[in-house]
């Protein structure tokens, strides 16, 4: 890790660590890229740069658990999009090495306080391109900082998750509000697809069987590799699956409907792999099961339309509160590069519709860090952690709050980007 040479002292600020009670009017010292000290009467180390924090607040930098940042620049222009590779099972692909550190998106999301993101080889929802209808494993998602000279420099975890797109039953993945309720669709021949529900179910089962077969193949490979069987040949695809099979890397599973989530959980149990569910819907229906099996989820966009025409208008707004009530551990993902900067406002909507405020804040900071296995390094303001901090004028989930300073690995990153530059330029036009 490239560390910041500068020692920075933020003094007289109100610190909201997220993992503990707020500390008013204290000093935070950032040294060697880490949070060196937090306390009431600390003397600034020699040569340290002092930032006056009176009236300002310190929070951990926020983390978006669902993006394609660095891989997709202009979502409708193929040449600028590197998500959604061809191939059904592509575990060997790594999002990290396709991250363009100079993407304009990084600067844009930083000004709103986002210091880390999960970036996926195909998020499977909105934004760039999904990996085609038939893709099952899109590759390895990386946890990255939103600043750095190179992708290596940006990496927090080069393989934070393996992305599995679980088949969706009947192809009704999207939201739009036009569809009838499942209970009704399932009764109408032809409603769940041209060939009817029975056929849709058959297709679904066949796809699940394919995934099982691939895992079996990987498991067989793992055995042969361990045994160094005669004639064993290294296979990059299957090799990439070993950390998943060993439980070292979780499967991030895109699965939205309750029945599919249930199947995904059963699949993971059978395969003895760790999973995180991405963009679940129907939390009320599967919450108990997720809680019982200790499976975390990444909630998709809160500001979203209901799934079906007769769902309550606020169905998506209340999903986080439902997850909380069920005791499910969750973080937020925006799943669209364009809206990553609105991550905190999605959390605010969840608060408006019943989620306790502290839980919303955790869901964009420490919960995300923990779910992706880096809770000891990032996601809260604590001594010894990586100095990913924001200094704000107020509550970071409130739209009108401004981020005044942002630090990544202890380095202050200027809050300018393409958009602030254009703003300055054209405001000054006479």
């Amino acid at each position, binding site marked *: 890790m490239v560390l910041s040479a500068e020692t920075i002292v933020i003094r007289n600020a109100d610190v909201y660590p997220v993992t503990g009670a707020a500390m008013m009017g204290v000093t935070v010292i950032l040294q060697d890229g880490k949070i060196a000290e937090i306390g009431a009467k600390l003397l600034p180390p020699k040569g340290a740069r002092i930032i006056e924090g009176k009236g300002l607040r310190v929070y951990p930098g926020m983390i978006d658990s669902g993006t394609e940042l660095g891989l997709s620049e*202009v979502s409708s222009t193929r040449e600028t999009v590197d998500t959604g590779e061809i191939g059904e099972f592509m575990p060997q692909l790594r999002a990290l090495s396709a991250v363009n550190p100079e993407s304009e998106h990084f600067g844009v999301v930083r000004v709103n306080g986002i210091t880390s993101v999960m970036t996926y080889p195909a998020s499977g929802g909105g934004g760039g391109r999904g990996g085609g209808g038939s893709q099952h494993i899109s590759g390895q998602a990386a946890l990255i900082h939103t600043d750095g000279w190179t992708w290596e420099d940006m990496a927090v975890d080069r393989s934070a998750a393996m992305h599995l797109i679980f088949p969706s039953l009947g192809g009704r993945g999207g939201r739009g509000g036009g569809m009838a309720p499942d209970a009704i669709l399932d009764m109408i021949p032809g409603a769940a697809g041209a*060939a009817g529900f029975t056929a849709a179910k058959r297709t679904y089962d066949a796809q699940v069987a394919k995934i099982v077969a691939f895992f079996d193949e990987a498991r067989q490979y793992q055995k042969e590799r361990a045994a160094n069987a005669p004639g064993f040949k290294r296979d990059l695809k299957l090799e990439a699956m070993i950390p998943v099979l060993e439980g070292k890397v979780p499967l991030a599973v895109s699965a939205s409907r309750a029945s599919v989530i249930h199947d995904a959980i059963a699949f993971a149990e059978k395969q003895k792999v760790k999973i995180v569910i991405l963009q679940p819907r129907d939390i009320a229906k599967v919450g108990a099961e997720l809680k019982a099996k200790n499976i975390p989820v990444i909630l998709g966009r809160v*500001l979203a*339309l209901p799934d079906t025409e007769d769902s309550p208008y606020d169905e998506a707004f209340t999903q986080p509160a439902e997850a909380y009530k069920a005791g499910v551990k969750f973080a937020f993902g925006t799943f669209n590069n364009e809206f990553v900067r609105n991550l905190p406002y999605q959390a605010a909507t969840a608060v408006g519709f019943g989620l306790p405020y502290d839980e919303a804040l955790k869901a964009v900071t420490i919960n995300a860090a923990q779910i992706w296995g880096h809770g000891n390094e990032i996601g809260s303001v604590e001594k010894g952690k990586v100095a990913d901090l924001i200094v704000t004028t107020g509550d970071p989930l409130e739209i009108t709050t401004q981020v005044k300073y942002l630090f990544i690995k202890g380095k202050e990153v200027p809050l300018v980007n393409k958009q602030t530059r254009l703003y300055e330029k054209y405001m000054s036009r006479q």
Partner: protein
Amino acid sequence: MKLSIRQYVFAACFAAAPLCAQTYVIKNATVMTVSKGTFKGSILVKDGKIAEVGEKVMEPAGAKVIDASNQYVIPGIIDCHSHIAGDGGINEGSISVSSMVDIKDIINPEDIAIYRALAGGVTTANILHGSANAIGGRTLPLKMRWGKDAQGMIFEGATPGIKFALGENPKRAGNPTGRAINGQAQQGRYPATRMGVEDVIREAFNNAKIYKAEWDAYAAKKTGIPPRKDLQMEALKEVLEGKRFVHAHSYRADEILMLLRIADDYGFKIRTLQHVLEGYKVAKEIAAHGAGASTFSDWWSYKMEAFDAIPYNAAIMQKKGVVVSLNSDDAELMRHLNSEAGKAIKYGGVSETEALAMVTLNPAKQLGIDNRVGSIEVGKDADLVIYDKFPLSDYAKVQKVLIDGTVYFDRDNEVSGRPGKAAEKQKMIDKEKQNQPRTQGGRGGRGGQ
């Protein structure tokens, strides 16, 4: 009886039925009037209009009191760019000038998006034709009077509009490399470039001027055979006469300027530039022309022409003298335009009132309906939204929405009515299940099982 999903949904949502306009006193609220400041006070609503606004108002006998202590009241939100309440097809893109078609003919009053918009505080929406062609179809504003028929939704007396579109969308259909069937590049529909888009609009107005001259000449002498009526030209003639507003989908500064100059040359006005994401680059020219600008708060990067979009766009244009509104163009975004307005405070630092005006009074001005709606003033339509918290924030939730003095959305009723609706739905499902034929075989393919 075959179960109709649409009828069921409609009936279920309509169960919290709007009553006829009654007298209301909304008390103890923080009233954000937009035009006359923000204060703690009350509003008297009578005969569908705002009858009194002040720290204290009269409480006529029989008036229903809505206690809005610790709550906020704002004027009904107006979305200057929406495609809801259509029958799904809003793009007559087969030709480059489709000014003969009219959104009015395809209003679907049962579109659930209307109810959802209402639940997000929207009381009026400008329903536009799509952006597939340089000159699109005719448009009109609707009030979100959920439960009324198509005619009952129409904003009475509002000046109708017409959609124009510049840039990537209208030229896409003409792009010979963009469409291929069986590997064969298709003969594209003209135009394929921004140059062609300009030409299509100029040709259309050249024709419209000739058409208008024929009719003017006929009107002057009132004898002989009248010219042949041309429905395509009629709408453009109305534009030239100032009887129909032009709402022009646009992105880049060059094309915005191009359209303003066409309008100057042919002697008509662009009423609003829609999206106008690079409007900040030519704010001076937009202000000089007198066009309104209706933009997104922070959308960007979804296509090449949106790559220079900046969230400061609204603030810059506003500071340079343009009447700016924030719109949705989206059935979801439409539901939280209140917090979209908050972004104008964050990006560019406009005041709370100016930000709120961007989703109320300013779009009303742009649509020429500010004598009726857009602010909380005596004599205006009682289109009001009550929020539980400061409304320019995502923490805020809509509690009640009134249109013409009638409560069309009430969150308490909505929530308390859910178990009843769920039970009713289950009953209908059970009934339908009973009606299903016993044998399932033979449904899937030939021969059965």
